[in-house]
């Protein structure tokens, strides 16, 4: 079961896509590890480590970078929210 990764707002524009799927390597088991994994893989994902105050959600709940990620999760990365 693959993991869906979503991007929003300025980060979506920086990485050039709104979503993609991947199979998590066994050592990638937190949101922070996923972020590092992606950023290390390609220049395209470097915005993930350049974005100040990067926020994340797992299965549509806001979490911090230490939160667990498992296969099948929906993981989202985005800048601080600015609604209202």
């Amino acid at each position, binding site marked *: 079961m693959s993991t869906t990764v979503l991007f929003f*707002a300025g980060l979506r524009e920086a990485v050039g896509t709104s979503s993609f799927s991947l199979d998590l390597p066994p050592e990638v088991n937190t949101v922070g590890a996923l972020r590092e994994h992606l950023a290390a893989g390609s220049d395209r994902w470097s915005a993930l480590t350049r974005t100040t105050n990067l926020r994340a*959600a797992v299965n*549509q709940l*806001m979490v911090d970078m230490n939160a667990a990620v498992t296969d099948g999760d929906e993981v989202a990365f985005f800048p601080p929210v*600015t*609604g*209202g």
Partner: protein
Amino acid sequence: MTISVQEGDFDVGREIADLSSGCREIGAVASFVGLVRNADATEKEINGLQSANHSAQITAMTLEHYPGMTENALANIVAQAKARWDLNNIRVIHRIGRLLPGERIVFVGVASAHRGDAFAACEFVMDYLKTQAPFWKKEETATGGRWVDARETDDTAAARWR
């Protein structure tokens, strides 16, 4: 309690009337309407003083959101408010898509027996919405588009309720 995330506008008078219709125990309806401003939002609090860069006039604003999570986050915020104060009804409406200066963005209305609860819950929902609900604003100005930065004052406002 009803939550809507929608492109279209809403009728403020009808929403406020609906919050108390049919319940004669409601004595107070506090509400908030957020509007698109024409001024650049790059305001920063520096030692409590606001220095605003009003040079760039905003011609439009586009609101992006995270479908699914948005509704969950708003429902969670509303549930927290209901647990915390004695409320009869809450209504939250947030618009998405492209909006012009002066257009309504958000509505929060709270009905309660007493005004203290209604005011507190309404402000709480707005403060939490500002920092917890996955919406992002992109402004259009004569020189192009730019994503609005999160305001530190919004974090401060939300932190009051902890």
